[in-house]
């Protein structure tokens, strides 16, 4: 009796969270799954078509074009960004720099700039004709263009790295701060060099957070939307198509193509892909952690 009563009290405590979670998370996903079984047509209206949307999706070259693009982007951009973030965190933690407080805030600041604003800003900076990049380019006579179909993705990589390095750095930095000081003292007594301290104490301490940060980054890049949505209105023929990233494609399908069902099936498949990739990273990361 007493045990049961305690259980019900527990339920009451999680109820606020559970009801919100259900309302804004589970119900929309369920609704998307429901929608994905229908086809909307301008003539003929809504019809139930079972899993046809999914069948169509796996054969849609535009969808796979977007998926392969975010994969390539993730493979290159995420390691660069994380190495940068880690180096910065180690530098801040080394206690050999002046003004670390200011540096920490200013590296983090780009994360607080809304992506719409930062894309506009970078669009101006990288503008071929009159932007800062354009002026440098003209002065050097190199003839580089950051927004051709071959270079746009690199430019987006620069923007994303700029925006998120600080956030990741802060996570790493917080972990480093939590390392007990006696470890360093012991290392110093044993005559370990600064590099050895980094290799033997700091990097192993970062391993757990690294997995979290990689997963966050994968989810973030798989959902890329703002940059390719805004850039085409600023630069001509950047090679950004309406299916440049899966998210952008879903948006176009739903809002200009009025194919909400198809867009919903795309969103669910993309979510599944993201979960699989994130899960693979996690399992692999944990196994490594046990090995050591």
């Amino acid at each position: 009796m007493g045990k049961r009563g305690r259980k019900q009290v527990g339920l009451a405590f999680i109820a606020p969270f559970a009801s919100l979670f259900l309302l804004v998370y589970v119900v929309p996903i369920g609704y998307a799954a429901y929608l994905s079984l229908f086809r909307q047509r301008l003539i003929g209206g809504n019809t139930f078509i079972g899993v046809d949307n999914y069948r169509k999706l796996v054969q849609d070259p535009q969808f796979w074009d977007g998926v392969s693009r975010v994969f390539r982007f993730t493979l290159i951009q995420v390691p660069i960004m994380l190495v940068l973030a880690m180096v910065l965190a180690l530098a801040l933690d080394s206690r050999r720099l002046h003004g670390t407080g200011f540096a920490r805030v200013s590296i983090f600041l780009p994360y607080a700039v809304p992506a719409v604003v930062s894309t506009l800003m970078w669009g101006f900076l990288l503008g071929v004709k009159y932007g800062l990049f354009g002026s440098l380019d003209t002065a050097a006579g190199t003839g580089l263009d950051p927004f051709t179909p071959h270079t746009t993705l690199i430019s987006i990589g620069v923007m994303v790295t700029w925006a998120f390095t600080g956030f990741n750095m802060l996570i790493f930095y917080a972990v480093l701060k939590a390392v007990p000081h006696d470890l360093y003292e012991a290392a110093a007594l044993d005559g370990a060099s600064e590099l050895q301290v980094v290799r033997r104490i700091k990097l192993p301490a970062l391993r757990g957070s690294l997995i979290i940060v990689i997963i966050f980054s994968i989810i973030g890049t798989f959902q890329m939307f703002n940059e390719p949505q805004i850039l085409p209105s600023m630069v001509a023929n950047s090679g950004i198509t309406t299916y440049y990233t899966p998210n952008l494609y879903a948006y176009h399908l739903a809002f200009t193509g009025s194919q909400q069902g198809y867009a919903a099936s795309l969103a669910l498949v993309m979510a599944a892909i993201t979960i699989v990739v994130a899960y693979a990273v996690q399992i692999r990361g944990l196994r490594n952690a046990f090995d050591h």
Partner: protein
Amino acid sequence: MRLHKHAALLSAALASVLALAACTGGSGATADSGDKQVNLTVWSWDGTVAKSVAGFQAANPNITVKVVNAGSSFDEYTALDNAIQAGSGVPDLAMFEYFAVPYFAIPGKLQDLQKYGAGDLKKDYVQAAWNDVTVNGKVYALPSDYGPSAMFYNDATLKKAGLNAPPATWDEYYEDAQKIHALGANYYIAQDTGDLFFLLSLIWQAGGRPFKVSGTKVHIDFTDPATTKAVAFWQKMLDGGLLNTKVTAWSDDWNRTLNDGTLASQIMGGWLTSTLPERAPQAAGQFRVALMPQWKAGDKVGAENGGSSFGIPAAAKHKDAAYKFLEYFTHGGGVAPRVDAGAFVPNTSVLNGADAQNKANQYFGGQKVGAVLAEASTSVASGWQYPPFFEWARSIYGDIASKYYTTGKIPLAQILEEWRQRMVKYGNDQGFQVD
């Protein structure tokens, strides 16, 4: 009014939030109290519509009009589609660019206005504008603003190139383009980074009618002689390197080329008149307006580039009152205050009126711009049709066109063919019969 659309695109994420907000806001406004007091909700991103509300309400004390901005262009169409689907929050009047009228009219989402007597108003509008609001012989909207294609040219740059008059024919245009480009590597007669509406206006003027719509049947063909002629001409301009393909319209770069005179001309809708002074203040007094160059010397054939109208959704609650207001601000006493506020309307009485004909525009060096645009409006060739899925079609045009403008490998004709194929596939998927 594509300029608004571009502003909206810049903050698309924001705008869709706004559209949602407006959508929920609109649902409360259609309440009918039953004592003949009617509250009308109007969705408009044309700011001048609100100017005619006071006069209308004074004449119709039982009707209250609320003008809401539910987003521009396709943000509004999305909000409207959602409202219609949800069955609540549908406005009594909504704004549509001309190309969007068939999208709503053909699936039965718009009210045929002939039963309210809209058919009698035909003679009071420019013929092509009337054609824009007519689908399968029924009238689904009334024209509210117009975008006759016109040539905005920098007279100072032309003079520098030894040209005393703007090109009257496309042959002259080609020759002038070479003379202007000879002024310097940055000098061009025009920019083009894949402007679909410009290309269509070129085809339109040449007499091509690539879209033929009848009921739910759509026939698309970019190979008729007139279309081919127009496309081949623009191909020649591109191949000759006579166009600035680096600077895209509405960008910061574009503003600069307009200011410093390196962009000698821009063929666009007449609505550019209102935004050009803000974009190119340093070029004040240098720009002039002329009709589009002609395919045959001595002709006066124009085309359209933009423009909008208002229609009554089939699901609207107060259709009688809605039509009353619609007639008032697009045809009746409400037109004058809107024109004063800067609206450019296709009403023949306004176009031929003394104000439009005689007013000198200081930004354009004292030219009587209104008279030129009135002539451009009345000379627009009629008979053009947009497919009902044009909003989607135009959004994917860039996917295909950007290949040309970055590599130069694919000719325009092939771009249009690929575009046609994707439209055929999409259109049939959507339940139309497209070939």
